[in-house]
């Protein structure tokens, strides 16, 4: 079980979660989560990226169960799936989506980003314990690994990409990582509501940018 030390908003009904998943299952969830983020960083295949984004939110749901009740954790999952669906529908309506199973050879850029992803993967696993000792003793190491990994993948995605879809995915990944970390530190309903609003607005902005991109190309 993971020790909990949460600042909450004083609600007596608050159920802060209970680390109900076994350690192995949580480790698998972290690996799946980081692999999804890595796919989004490396591959440039929109259908696959949206699928990986959805999978990423499923991983977040499993990890956040450690510090949130299943009901509250489910909100994050639902919001995440809504965000993925919103981006998917935008891509479908713009006629730019390709098949999920389409095979394409790896480009040199993808190989480079793959190496970076491997590096980020390692950093996330290696730095988590140090981070736990020095700054976040109340957060579990696996949660910190997932959080740090998402933040790093998100930052790298934002820094290297100017395509609207990947910018949106980068921002969402970065924010998810931070949300995961912050969930282990503080609980507040208004904060949860604001995070939900920010995620949905981000998806809207991403969709808006994609539509504008398509419109300007066709013009």
């Amino acid at each position: 079980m993971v020790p909990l030390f949460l600042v909450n908003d004083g609600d007596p009904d608050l159920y802060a979660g209970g680390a109900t998943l076994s350690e192995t299952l949580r480790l698998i969830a972290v690996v799946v989560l980081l692999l999804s983020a890595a796919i989004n960083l490396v591959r440039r295949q929109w259908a696959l990226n949206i699928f990986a984004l959805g999978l990423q939110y499923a991983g977040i749901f499993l990890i956040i169960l450690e510090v949130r009740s299943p009901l509250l954790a489910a909100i994050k999952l639902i919001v995440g799936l809504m965000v993925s669906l919103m981006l998917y529908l935008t891509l479908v309506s713009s006629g730019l989506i390709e098949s999920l199973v389409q095979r394409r050879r790896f480009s040199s850029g993808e190989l480079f980003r793959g190496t970076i992803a491997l590096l980020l993967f390692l950093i996330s696993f290696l730095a988590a314990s140090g981070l736990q000792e020095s700054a976040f003793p109340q957060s579990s190491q696996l949660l910190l690994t997932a959080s740090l990994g998402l933040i790093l993948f998100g930052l790298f995605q934002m820094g290297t990409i100017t395509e609207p879809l990947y910018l949106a995915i980068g921002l969402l990944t970065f924010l998810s990582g931070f949300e995961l970390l912050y969930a282990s530190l503080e609980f507040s309903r208004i904060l949860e509501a604001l995070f939900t609003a920010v995620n949905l607005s981000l998806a809207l902005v991403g969709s808006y940018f994609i539509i504008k991109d398509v419109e300007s190309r066709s013009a």
Partner: protein
Amino acid sequence: MSLMTTSTIWILFPLVLSILLMAVHRLQKLSVWIACLGSLFLSIAAFVFPETLEFSLGSRNYIFDDTFLIFNRALTLTATQLRTVAMFYLFSFLWNIVGARFSVSRWFPTVSLATTALWVSTLAVEPFLYAALIVELIVLISVLLLTPRGEQAGSGVMRYLVSQTIALPFILLSGWMVTGIESAPSASVLILRGTVMILIGFSLWLAVFPLHSWMPMLAEKSHPWVFSFIFLMQQTSLSIFLLKVLDQFAWLRNLSGVFPAMQWAGVLTLLAGGVLASMQTKVNRILAYIVLIETGYSVLAIGLIGQGGGEALALSLLPRALAYWQWSYTLSSIHQIAPEIDGSFPSLRGLFTRLPFHSLSLIISLLGLLGLPGLGLFPAKRLLWNSGAGLTFGYTTLLGLAVAGMALFILRLMHTLLTNDPNLPTPGLSGKDEESLPRVLVLFLLTLLLLLLGMFPHIFLNPFLGILEPFIHLLPPS
């Protein structure tokens, strides 16, 4: 949950109004009028609202609460904050009243009203660091206006979004990190971490040098009217929010080195703005450097809070807004009259002979922002120059260089506006045809207003000192 609160009037009501405006956004005149009248009403109401928060209407007595509870958290808007609220809605009114004249987005009235209400909520939300998420929401709403019509989102707007999003964790984590720090004064490492995080967060938000690279890109692509409104609101609100952070966190304001760090950040930012402005050849991008310079002055003012910086900040808010208004109005008007002018220096050559009043207005607004004696920003800038120079000689030199850089740009712009292209025939004085009387009147009235603010600051600007009243720890009442 009582709805008879100040937050209901100045946050929830305008938010509901902006949602209603979404439904009628296609009827541009109607939505502009609703946004204008709504903003004006909210500004006047905030200005005249009694300090006791109660008033009588006929035989009935209405008592308002300053706290609105939501999800166990509070939105607290006290009587002392209402001056700031009045100013925000005044800005919203000023930008909406002529916004429809220019080809800005039809969403401008809706978005401007919603973002104004959200900026007010950043000052009201408790715990106040939750405002970081509201700022993120404002940024996400604002980017809808900042992307030009029919064009793809440029790298400027994307970088803006990224930098503002990265600021969010710094602000939120700093708040958590220093929870209960007052009871553990020896935890200096935590204090240092919290301080660094807050300063980085604000630097990203305010685009302090060297984190400003996205700003000129954004200014070049966005409509000047939209850009000036969004960044005036952001700059003003975040400066006041920074004052609030310093006021609330004793550990932050008592840490040695915080105020000198802000002074240096301010001086270097305005130096960067001045030097980069001096080399510019596109007036569209200049608005970004103007915002950068004014951010530098704001940060410097907060850094000099013990030497009259607070007063300088409060005195600068209205004249700065009017100078932004004049610059963006003139530039938007020029684009409308002569769409072939793309803002580059070659396209502006000899403009004085064609649009003399607009050319003069461009120069006057820049001189006002430079801090020329007799114009609105002079009293505030004089205070800062004197306080800064009194502290260290290094500031004097750097401030001088920054002002010189901006002055050099003004001289280059004047030269461009007055000199005709030798390869083209000299245009005649056709200003009478192209500069309509209402436009000239607006420019004249605005110049007059800036002159009045500069000549009689004690009449027009002293009421703005009331903005500092809520910060009783940072600026104890004498």
